[in-house]
């Protein structure tokens, strides 16, 4: 009798535990820490890690600021952005990749309704009143140029491969190239041309093949997207052009860092998209709280080469911990 009683009690306890567990999985409408703000982030309608990282950073900042964050995508017509004024958000962060005039019109509508707006990763016009959070593409070009200048004093024949996967870079390609030209002396730069890949992950392969075939004297390729870096490098390995053409990549993918270790890639430019997203939400929170924030927040860019790879990796490891 005692054994059956104990077994019955045990079964009941397990059942109660499972029911309680099941009920606890249902999210409650009321939360103990109710968000004080509702922010909305508009990102380009492309699927790549760069924007995913921005979203991750923005969500982290929303938690830290006790805010709720909704994420929307931008369409080329700007309809989505035009709805931003009616969704009831306290602030909007936009990563524009559509026509600047459409964006500007939509943002003006928001401004009329006194809805705080910050621009992320891509500035539309320098004289507009919306704060900008992201990297300075002129600095990007300057850093690349300085790096090239360290190991090639003359006859630089380079190609910059832009990508739809990182549209802000393409949008500000003049700034990028200006930075490069400033850093390397004009007399050392034989030629500099820009190319563009679509959102396909392997699009860079085709561009690299075409470049090798068409430009025999090409000695430097600069990528502006992580996936393009990986695909283009693989193409150069396949064509046995490693060493003959210097590669400057983009992003801190482990495979890219491995290529640096092996000497396949000379260096890579690393931006921190999570920090961009994080700073964007922080700026919105500041705007909601005080009505003011910094006009521009440079989230920085760093160049990782074989020399500083170890320290970069240890720093990353420390940051992750």
């Amino acid at each position, binding site marked *: 009798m005692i054994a059956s009683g104990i077994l019955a009690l045990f079964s009941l306890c*397990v059942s109660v535990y499972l029911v309680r567990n099941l*009920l606890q999985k249902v999210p409650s409408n009321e939360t103990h820490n109710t968000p004080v703000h509702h922010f909305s982030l508009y990102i380009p309608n492309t699927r790549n890690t760069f924007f995913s990282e921005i979203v991750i950073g923005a969500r982290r900042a929303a938690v830290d600021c006790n805010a709720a964050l909704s994420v929307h995508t931008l369409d080329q017509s700007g309809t989505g952005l035009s709805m931003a004024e*009616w969704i009831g958000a306290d602030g909007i962060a936009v990563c524009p990749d559509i026509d600047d005039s459409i964006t500007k019109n939509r943002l003006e509508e928001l401004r009329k309704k006194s809805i705080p707006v910050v621009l992320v990763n891509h500035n539309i016009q320098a004289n507009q009143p919306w704060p900008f959070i992201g990297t300075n593409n002129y600095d990007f070009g300057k850093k690349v140029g300085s790096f090239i200048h360290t190991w090639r004093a003359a006859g630089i024949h380079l190609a910059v491969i832009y990508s739809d996967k990182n549209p802000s870079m393409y949008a500000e390609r003049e700034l990028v190239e200006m930075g490069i030209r400033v850093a390397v002396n004009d007399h050392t730069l034989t030629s500099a041309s820009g190319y563009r890949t679509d959102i396909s992950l392997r699009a860079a392969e085709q561009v690299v093949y075409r470049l090798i075939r068409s430009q025999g004297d090409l000695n430097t390729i600069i990528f502006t997207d992580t996936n393009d870096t990986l695909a283009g490098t693989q193409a150069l390995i396949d064509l046995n052009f490693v060493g003959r053409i210097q590669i400057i990549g983009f992003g801190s993918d482990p495979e890219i860092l491995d290529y640096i270790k092996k000497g396949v890639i000379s260096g890579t430019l690393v931006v921190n998209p999570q920090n961009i997203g994080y700073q964007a939400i922080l700026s919105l929170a500041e705007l909601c709280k005080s009505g003011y924030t910094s006009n521009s927040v440079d989230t920085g860019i760093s160049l990782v080469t074989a020399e500083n790879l170890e320290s970069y990796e240890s720093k990353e490891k420390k940051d992750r911990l």
Partner: protein
Amino acid sequence: MKRGMQNSFRIQMLVSFFGVLLILVVSASYILYSTIKIQELVNKNFEKQRYVKEVQSELGDFQKPFLEYLSSKSSDALSQLLILSQKIHGMLPSYTYTPVDPIDLSEKEVYSLVNSYLDLADIAIDEKRGMNIESYTNLYNQMQQLLDYINQEIESISSSRYSDQLAGYEVFITNSRNIQLWNLLFIIFISLFSFILIIYSVDKINEPMVNLSRMATEISAGNFESDDIGMTSLYEIDRVVDAFNRMKRDIHTYIEEIKWQRNVEQEYMQERVKNMRMEEMIRRMELYTLQAQMNPHFLFNTLNTGLQLAIVEGAERTGEYMEHLAKLFRHNLHQQNVLVRLRHEIEGLESYFYILGVRFPKNLDLVLDCPPDLLDQYTIPSYILQPLVENCVVHAFKETDQRNSIVVRIFLENKWLILSVADNGVGMPQDRIDALLYPVPVDKFHSKVMGLENVIQRLYFFFPEDPEVVVIKSSGGNGTDIRIRIDTGKTLCIPY
């Protein structure tokens, strides 16, 4: 046993019954509760989506009267619009908080968009009233865009929610199955527990009944020696058990008393039979005595006549002899009592000694040693010394040429009065002694037994507790000493 609520048979029955009932009701309630909770959970997952769809549907219904009003400015359409607008406004939840969940946040945004849509509709209606055609046309276009976006967002929410639910569905089903499995196990074990509890309760009540039945069977078989039935925790049952145990003991005691009485009665009857036999024997002895007295009286009278004749004729010694003989006869004839004073026994023996002295004047020495102070102090069974002396005369001196002697001594030894008759005759063999000293049961004793054996059996009769009341010491050729010892501190045993 202490009488408490918990020890009541009725309370325990009720507790067992209602306890099991309560366990089963609680178990069933819990199963129902968990099932309802699971159902509520499933329902809750679809509740929000149904609500959004309802709002979407109402918004769809809003389009027709809105377009109709913009086209015809119909008052019916306007009233319909106002009703619908109010209805939709009423359906929109008023958020007191900002949800964190992305889907819930999108839902909040949709409701905000719907609210904006209705606000734009109000403005458009006003513009229509003001006949501001361009404005309400632009507003209408804007509203169409907004409506499309709302529908798109609702579909997106549905899709996201569906994906979300699909991901959780498998987990939910697994958890539900686990809950149902454990509920089933719970029901099985709790039913088993209840079943065993009932059996235990029934056994608890039944056990004393079985014991009572067993004990009743044993008692009916006459076994009263078995242990009492043990007490239980039920005072009603214990009262029955206690009464039964007491009844068993009382019956046992009563039966023992009856047995004892029967034994006493048997012993009494045996004693009575024995007494009757003894009475019969005594009467027979008296008869023999009377018969025996017939001739001695005649002989005594004849001896008296002979004595008178001897006196008349001058034969003095003959006269003296006949006088002693007459004394002895008279002594024996007048001996009516069973117990006599020692003096009486000694006087008879003196006459007997005189006669023996006349009969055996040359070779028989007779000695009688009895302190005079003892003669009147003690009582002894009558006629015990003369037969012993006679036995010596008859048996002890056969085939002996020496001078014979018989010594009779009476003396006190501690509390014992010793009567000793010793001779210097041929002695007595041991087997003869053993045969003589064997006590014959009273009912087997024949009054016709005479002489030494008669004396010995009578002594055993008077002193049944003293096996050494008479002792015979003898060895071949060295004579025989017969000693009688009488406890002076005790009254002689006379059974009737």
